């Protein structure tokens, strides 16, 4: 299926949930926050939240700042 992550188009297969998506992207261990179609997804819900064709994601994390 085709999804957009952080402004870039991606084709991703064999995933059902956000948790699957993060695992496939190699981000399973990282502290990331996910927004799906402008809705912030609770981190505890990644395993139950289904990814659909044409979804738009923002995947953000904490970086150094003042």
């Amino acid at each position, binding site marked *: 299926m085709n999804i957009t992550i*952080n402004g870039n188009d991606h084709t991703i297969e064999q995933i059902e949930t956000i948790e699957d998506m993060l695992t496939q992207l190699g981000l399973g261990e990282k502290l990331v*926050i996910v927004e799906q179609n402008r809705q912030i*997804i609770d981190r505890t819900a990644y395993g139950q939240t289904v990814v659909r064709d044409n979804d738009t994601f923002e995947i*953000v994390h*904490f970086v*150094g*700042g*003042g």
Partner: protein
Amino acid sequence: MLKIGEKTFESRLLLGTGKYTDATVQQEAIDASASQILTFAVRRLDIFDKQQANFLESLDLTKYDLLPNTAGAKTAEEAVRLAKLARASGMCDMVKVEVIGCDKTLLPDPIETLRASEELLKEGFIVLPYTSDDVVLARRLEELGCHAIMPAASPIGSGQGILNPLHLQFIIEQTTVPVIVDAGIGSPTDVAYAMELGADGVLLNSAVAHAKDPVKMAHAMRLAVEAGRLGYEAGRIEKKQYAVASSPTSGLIR
């Protein structure tokens, strides 16, 4: 003790986590500063460069209270979105509202800052807005219910120190919530001066991260915060035009 919302802190020094070039140095600088509150930013993850250096990952964030900023926002809506993303980490409920209104000076947009603060207070955040040194704006932010006011000493990262002590003093005297001088600090002198003016705390980043020896500077800043605060509490003497002898003027030998 510094009290922000329902939380109290021994340390009155808040430390930014940007601009470090070495994770070990950063950790040692944080230790030397004795800061309990760390600021950081929220950014897109580069999913193609997972090995990118992110020093925050080497810090044990559970040891600190986290103060995410909304840096990068130019509107209230963008700031609210960033704040909500940060809170979704489940690691913080405080937010430094930072809505920049001018790219050259990085001075805050007062109207967007006010709007963002109002919205985030409604959403239940502990709100600490970064503001200019305008006492009227500070009072309006306090009236909204902001938990602290964070006026700039001078432009972000400029190291120019306190350019308008009078305006900072107005804010300190005319608000009841904590006043944390944020941005523009260059040296321990600036920090001690802010604290002597009666500031409740100081937030700095570049002054430590870009010092020749960040760890030693972090230690110096900790001492400067303590010295300035003690000096404020002790109450300084009046300034006089002429000399007043410290030694007795009687009993002189002839």
